[in-house]
């Protein structure tokens, strides 16, 4: 991405001239205070937030010009994981995971219940198996715990057979042990499947232990970008604009 600026309709400038190169297979942690533009950064990558100026190339797509069907095809190749899981709670785990196949299936098939191809279901089962909750495949999403729901969301992303997974504060609504399990899952899909993973985190220790590269945002600007080894406490103090506090780490 080159000189990307994002300005919302409200006039807020969420990203200012951001330039980044992220190579395939990287495991990136994006850190910054609340309001620093982490979510905006992640959302520009799959076109949920339009860029105001600059250019952004993802895979073979040019985000500044992509529209309609092209944008949907791009999104089909990028998995996304949310802080609030964003599952359809009243339907089965399988139906939720199959949402990951939408962009790869004809509309008519996806509108009818159970009209997905057997191969699509196979992909969904494998995705659930990879995050260890295949046994819950027929359960209602609402009956699962938070950690299990987030794993369903990861399976939904995997089901897209993505080349890139974006995770926006994936563990912020989970308790510490579960947070580690979910971060482990993300690391595994990065290491075993070679999928690029970009994760927004506000906790320093999680960013350090799960990322290989850290990008620090402050007020919409990149103030740090480097390997995890070089991201010292002083670096975090610069990103946060204040000294590091105990509230900035998960502990455990």
């Amino acid at each position, binding site marked *: 991405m080159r000189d990307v600026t994002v300005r919302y309709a409200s006039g807020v400038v969420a990203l200012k001239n951001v330039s980044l190169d992220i190579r395939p297979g990287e495991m990136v942690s994006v850190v910054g205070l609340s309001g620093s533009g982490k979510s905006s950064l992640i959302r520009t990558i*799959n076109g*949920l937030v339009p860029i105001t100026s600059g250019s952004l190339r993802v895979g073979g797509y040019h985000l500044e010009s992509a529209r309609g069907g092209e944008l*949907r*095809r*791009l*999104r*089909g*190749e*990028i*998995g*996304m994981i*949310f802080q*609030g*899981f*964003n*599952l*359809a*709670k*009243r*339907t089965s785990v399988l*139906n939720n995971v199959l*949402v*990951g196949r*939408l*962009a790869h299936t004809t*509309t008519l098939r*996806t*509108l009818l219940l159970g009209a997905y191809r057997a191969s699509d279901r196979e992909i969904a089962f494998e995705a659930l198996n990879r995050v260890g909750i295949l046994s819950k495949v027929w359960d209602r999403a*609402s009956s699962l715990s938070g950690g299990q729901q987030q794993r369903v*969301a990861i399976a*939904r*992303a995997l089901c*897209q057979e993505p080349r890139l997974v974006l995770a926006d504060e994936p563990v912020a609504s989970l308790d510490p042990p579960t947070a580690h399990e979910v971060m482990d899952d993300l690391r595994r899909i990065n290491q075993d499947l070679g999928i690029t993973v970009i994760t927004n985190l506000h906790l320093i220790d999680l960013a350090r232990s799960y990322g290989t590269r850290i990008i620090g945002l402050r007020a919409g600007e990149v103030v740090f970008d480097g390997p995890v080894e070089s991201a010292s406490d002083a670096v975090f103090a610069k990103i946060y604009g204040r000294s590091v506090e105990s509230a900035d780490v998960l502990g455990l």
Partner: protein
Amino acid sequence: MTVLTIPSRRRAWGRSTAMIIVGAVVIGAFWSVDVNWARLADLPAQVMHYLWLMFSDPNWSKVPEALGQTWKSVAMAWVGTVIGILLSFPLGFLAARGFSPAPVRWSMRVGFAIIRAVPEIIIAIAILSVTGLTPLTGALALAIGSVGTLGKWGYEAIEGVDPGPIEATRASGGNIAQILRWGVWPSATPDFISFWLYRFEINVRSSAVLGLIGVGGIGDMLTSYTQFREWSTVGVLIIVVVIVTMGIDAISGAIRRRIVEGT
């Protein structure tokens, strides 16, 4: 002890004014209605008289016919509800914020509001000249009436749906139809089914009233026998209508409760 500074309470002038106006209208309405108050004194005796005529010796032999006509009314309500659902469903989406452009949205909403303002019986009279005095007229009138309420309830439910799954379906590359199917529909299903059943209950009651203009069903039968002053039959008809309507309400209400609670 510190003295608390309590913010002065804003007087709700608007509310007070509204209350005074409503009160004035109510009192004025009473004055202007040309009621022969003296006859009011006779009312209890009159009511007792007719109740006696109707229920002292009900003409039970009319029960089968009454049930047949009630069935016709319920069928009218059912057909009307189904057509209403089929029409209101797509229109409801067109009226929902985030799923259609503002001009379309607002014209839908105004349309629903106009329909809601017109009683079904007026709609029936309006389409009578085209469709004739048939149960179909009743069903169509109920269908149109249903669109008004179901459309409004529909878009309100759609707009109130959890935005999370919508965002997730959009992020995985879904098009608008897929977003509706997998982002909106799973959360909105219980609401929709519950609205449909509730509207069916309303239509069952309305269908009896529609009989008054002669489109058939139990209302039609009731009007005829009232005109013949055959009170013992009228009594039976009232009993049948009340029992059937309450029965349908009870069943449909129980299903609705299960749907809403079982989620």
